[in-house]
């Protein structure tokens, strides 16, 4: 439903987006990840036709956003970064305004607005002026605005930015409920969020797509994917040397050692689970295993690995 081809945006010599391409079909929830200034917002702005691309095209439901913007935008619900809203309007009049622009009039308009207010739990504030709302409600009002016309495409720029954990969960649930018959793009800095709701994740860095995959697949690229943490009764030196000899083990970190036990982390060579071999080895040396934990890999590690540039990486270390 969304087809993005080689989008480039050049802000007078500063290339913010440099050849981003992807396709998205119904049911997909695409997480747009990347460090600050990577070009996520700029890419989204080009897809919704707010910024004209320097080159490349974006087609939404068969309508090119540059040549046929009205038809394309009818099929998009867009939440801009920082949820801009008309502060002097009430939640209800604002949603009515958007509904009118979306070509609902009279009774139909009021029905759509009522349904949306209910769906987004805005009943308590429907007559409140937007500028007096708390940030969470403002964010949700802007989110509500995207779904009045039940569009096939949702584009959400950091929809959960600045929400408390409960509200974050609420917005995530709403996105998941709608996901089945829509194509959704959302950007976020919260990697667990991408993991929880996205069926696909694109990491972009310096305006380029560095990976296009699923969150689960991405996690497999983490060095700690299937790493094993062990707490055994043994001497640190000896245990480290022994485990390093194992074929499946890439490296061993000593996390903590004392007179009577040692904690180790074993990293697998090619993502193989290590539990069985490690246990057998410990058993053959008569080491008592006090604790054992297998790790599933963290998206943060992959994210850092893929996006941190040389000089920043030194600072991070």
């Amino acid at each position, binding site marked *: 439903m969304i087809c993005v081809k080689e989008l480039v945006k050049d802000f007078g010599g500063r290339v913010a987006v440099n050849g981003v391409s992807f396709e998205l079909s119904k049911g997909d929830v695409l997480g747009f990840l990347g460090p600050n200034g990577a070009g996520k917002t700029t890419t989204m*702005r080009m897809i*919704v*036709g*707010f*910024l004209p691309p320097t080159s490349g095209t974006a087609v939404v439901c068969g309508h090119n956003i540059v040549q046929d*913007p*009205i*038809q394309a*935008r*009818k099929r*998009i619900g*867009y939440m*801009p970064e*920082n949820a*801009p*809203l*008309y*502060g*002097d*309007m009430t939640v209800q*009049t604002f949603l009515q*305004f*958007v509904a*009118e*622009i*979306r*070509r609902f*009039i009279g009774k139909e308009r009021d029905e759509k607005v009522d349904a949306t207010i209910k769906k987004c739990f805005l009943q308590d504030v429907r007559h409140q002026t937007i500028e007096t709302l708390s940030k969470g409600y403002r964010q949700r009002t*802007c989110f509500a*605005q995207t779904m009045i016309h039940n569009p096939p495409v949702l584009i959400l720029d950091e929809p959960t930015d600045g929400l408390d954990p409960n509200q974050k969960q609420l917005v995530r649930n709403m996105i998941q409920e709608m996901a089945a018959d829509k194509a959704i793009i959302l950007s976020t800095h919260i990697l667990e969020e991408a993991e929880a709701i996205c069926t696909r994740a694109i990491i972009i860095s310096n305006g380029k797509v560095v990976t296009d995959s699923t969150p689960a697949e991405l996690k497999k690229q983490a060095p700690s994917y299937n790493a094993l943490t062990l707490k055994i009764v043994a001497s640190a030196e000896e245990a480290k040397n022994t485990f390093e000899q194992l074929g499946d083990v890439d490296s061993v970190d000593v996390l903590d050692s004392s007179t009577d036990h040692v904690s180790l982390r074993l990293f697998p060579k090619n993502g193989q689970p290590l539990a069985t071999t490690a246990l057998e080895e410990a058993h053959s040396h008569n080491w008592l295993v006090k604790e054992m934990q297998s790790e599933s890999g963290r998206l943060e590690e992959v994210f850092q690995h893929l996006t941190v540039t040389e000089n920043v990486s030194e600072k991070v270390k």
Partner: protein
Amino acid sequence: MESFQQTKSIAKREWGSYFNSPVAYVFIMIFLVLAGFFTFAVSQFFESGQADLRAFFVWHPWLYLILVPAVAMRLWSEERRARTIELLLTLPITPWQAICGKFLAAWLFLILSVVLTFPIVLTAMYLGQLDLGVVLCGYVGSILLAGAYLAIGMCTSALTKNQVISFILSVVIGLFFILAGFPPVTDLLSRFSPVWLVDAIAAFSFMAHYEALQRGVLDVRDVVYFASIIGFMLLGTHIVLRTRAAQ
């Protein structure tokens, strides 16, 4: 028809935003007080002993010069500052619909303010025989003039997110349009420029066209003049929005 519906929705929202804030009331108050002050105190309407509204209409170009940019400056600057422009221009409307909707709302608001000066007309009618045709023509001229100032202010408002800059720019441009035909300036110009040049510059001025309408002459050319200034400035707004909406 469908497209007008949306223009109307935008105009309605804009109209509401004037009345949701004190802007509307403050503006109308100040406009009426100043119009009354200049007409009665400065022009000495009662003492002149004439039953026409020259003393009233003659001040409008100067009042509008300051007051209309104050109404126009927020039209786009505020959208830029609050970033709602991103919301507005990604809805399924054309920039023209947004521009016309905003322009209509602001113009209707100015028309309301002008119409609220009707007590001055009633006073004049009470004092003597008033040619209502001339008065009507005078109001048409005043409304067209307000529209022209408004279109200028709208264009400068689209240029920047800073309302003060927008205000100053449109006052300067408005001043040019007045002074180009202001007798003291044309006299000065005619001392060292050829007559045709002075006339050409003066033809661009609001003054000649506005005064013709005040005399009760509803000439199509004057109406076309104001309409083209408005059209030209709205086109300018369109170009500005298209090229730098996101900056």
